[in-house]
């Protein structure tokens, strides 16, 4: 198989959905008590039939997470470089048709932002942009990496999908991980939510992790935007994607995020709502299905939820995030991509983690490991 698309095309959304919703208590028990779990077990764990087993799932998820990751939570912070975007995405504050002032940080501004977030204690940073290929292109990213990398142990990006060669140019400059969420694996709905711009190409986005794997990236992050479509079916496809990638690009690490649609001015209401109980079910299902995958939770979620999720299988968290370019130092008032729910400072979150009996980890990588020897 040359890419995930070949495998993906053998599945039909409605069949998968029907299969998940037909899982029974017996299937759930089998999944809970198996020594190794497969995709059918994952379906059972995310199915409505698993809802009564939530406490048992949480206990198992905690146990498996502690065995692999210990009692630790890694901390990272997003650094928004630009809100320029040529895409129309019905759910996003940066959407092209959202009439707001656009900003792309200059080199000087990037360094001002870096200084602010270093003071917050961070050593892992996630660079975020919209998709504006005229101004925020691979040369911009190269420059940004060169400016940011000397100040951080670990640099990730969440930007438009790039070509394999472009990733290959960024990796030796210190790029550790790339997050690229499919948003939804429902082809028709994807088209509806992304009517204009390069992002409207479903297949190009779907094959991005393949390009990353071929480029030899250390880590990639997958996920869907929960609220666009049936979250159970979308999560199955995420797990299918993860399993394919783990087998194909076995030298890369993987992380999963579960962003729930957050409000922004004039934005979309979720088509499918997911409550807290269901999000816990999903997080635990991922952990039980895959003991090694990293699970990340952002400040989109509420204080109460984040306070309690630490012990359930999450391995990394952001804190004190600003989702507007320049938000930390340059111009803190500019438009945000989405509303933050948990506004507590990194210190407060670190204390929270400690109070739960976990160690906040600020550094778990070193720029010396970024294949600089080959650069």
């Amino acid at each position, binding site marked *: 198989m040359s890419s995930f698309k070949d495998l993906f095309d053998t599945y039909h959304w409605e069949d998968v959905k029907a299969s998940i919703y037909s899982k029974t208590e017996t299937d759930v028990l089998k999944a809970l008590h198996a020594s190794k779990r497969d995709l059918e077990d994952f379906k059972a764990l995310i199915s409505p039939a698993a809802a009564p087993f939530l406490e048992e799932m949480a206990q198992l998820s905690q146990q498996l997470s*502690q*065995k*692999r*990751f*210990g*009692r*630790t939570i890694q901390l990272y912070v997003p650094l928004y470089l630009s809100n320029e975007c040529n895409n129309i995405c019905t759910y996003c504050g940066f959407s092209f048709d959202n009439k707001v002032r656009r900003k792309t940080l200059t080199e000087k501004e990037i360094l001002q932002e870096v200084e602010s977030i270093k003071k917050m204690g961070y*050593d892992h940073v996630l660079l975020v942009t919209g998709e504006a290929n005229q101004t925020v292109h691979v040369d911009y990213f190269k420059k940004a990496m060169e400016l940011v990398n000397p100040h951080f*142990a670990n640099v990730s990006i969440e930007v438009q999908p790039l070509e394999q060669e472009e990733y290959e140019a960024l990796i030796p400059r210190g790029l550790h991980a790339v997050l690229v969420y499919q948003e939804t694996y429902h082809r028709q709905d994807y088209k509806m939510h992304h009517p204009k711009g390069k992002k409207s190409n479903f297949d190009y986005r779907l094959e991005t992790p393949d390009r990353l794997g071929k480029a030899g990236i250390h*880590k990639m992050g997958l996920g869907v935007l929960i609220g666009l479509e049936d979250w159970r079916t979308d999560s199955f496809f995420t797990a299918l994607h993860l399993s394919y990638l*783990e087998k194909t690009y*076995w*030298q*890369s*690490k993987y992380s999963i995020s579960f962003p729930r649609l957050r409000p922004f001015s004039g934005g979309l209401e979720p088509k499918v709502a997911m409550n807290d109980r269901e999000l816990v079910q999903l997080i635990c299902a991922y952990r039980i299905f895959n003991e*090694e995958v990293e699970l990340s939770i952002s400040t989109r979620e509420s204080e109460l939820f984040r306070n309690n999720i630490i012990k359930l299988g999450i391995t990394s968290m952001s804190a004190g995030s600003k989702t507007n370019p320049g938000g930390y130092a340059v111009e803190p008032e500019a438009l945000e991509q989405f509303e933050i729910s948990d506004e507590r400072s990194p210190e407060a979150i670190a204390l929270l983690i*400690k109070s739960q*009996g*976990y*160690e906040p*980890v600020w*550094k*778990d*990588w*070193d720029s*010396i*490991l970024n*294949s*600089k*020897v*080959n650069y």
Partner: protein
Amino acid sequence: MEQVINKLKIGEVEFSSRLFTGTGKFSATELMEQSILASGSELITVALKRVDIKNQDHDNLLGRLKHPHIQLLPNTSGVRNAKEAIFAAQLAREALETNLIKLEIHPDPKYLMPDPIETLIATEALAKLGFTVLPYIHADPVLCKRLEDAGTAAVMPLGSPIGSNKGLKTIDFLEIIIEQSKVPVVVDAGIGAPSDAAKAMEIGADAVLVNTAIAVSPNPVAMGLAFKLAVEAGHMAFKAKLAPQHSNAIPSSPLTSFLDV
């Protein structure tokens, strides 16, 4: 009790304790320190990626390891090939001022399986550069002999997959390695209980390295001590020689008794 105080020598370094431990997965660095002290361990492995070697004085983890009886064993966790490992080892030597290096090359981030080919290449190069190399490897007897030829200071075969706590799944191969080895054999990875550590020592391992089983225990301090005692007991039993095992009772009328008539 001469057997008990029998010291272990790896390269030029001597150890009174045959229990090596790690620094990962603890719920707090204070607890890590107490646990390490309780374990009596004198060699503590620390991932280069977890510490801030540029600002060591401010590094919370390194600060907890400053005890006169403790030596650091930097490890190369995170590297994917020999080239990266050699680079990382040189930085570790410079920053932490030790020749000791735990060579970990696991290009597979899921099960952290060590790459035997890259490990052999890196061991040879690092030994030539004067490092005391302790490579983490599969329980592969031939690889161990090849590593000896390449100048390794010890071998660190796994008992079972790292972090799995499954014990000595590779025991048959460990026994061959121990029988054949001219360098110390340190059983690393998979030791889930003090009884596993004792077993490794009873079959003649020179030391064990334990991290997850101590760090993830609800009481890492008590577990550190439990491992200390188990390693001492296992080593003492090995030195004292175990009584032979019999799968059947010895018959009271032996087959050859007629010869005595």
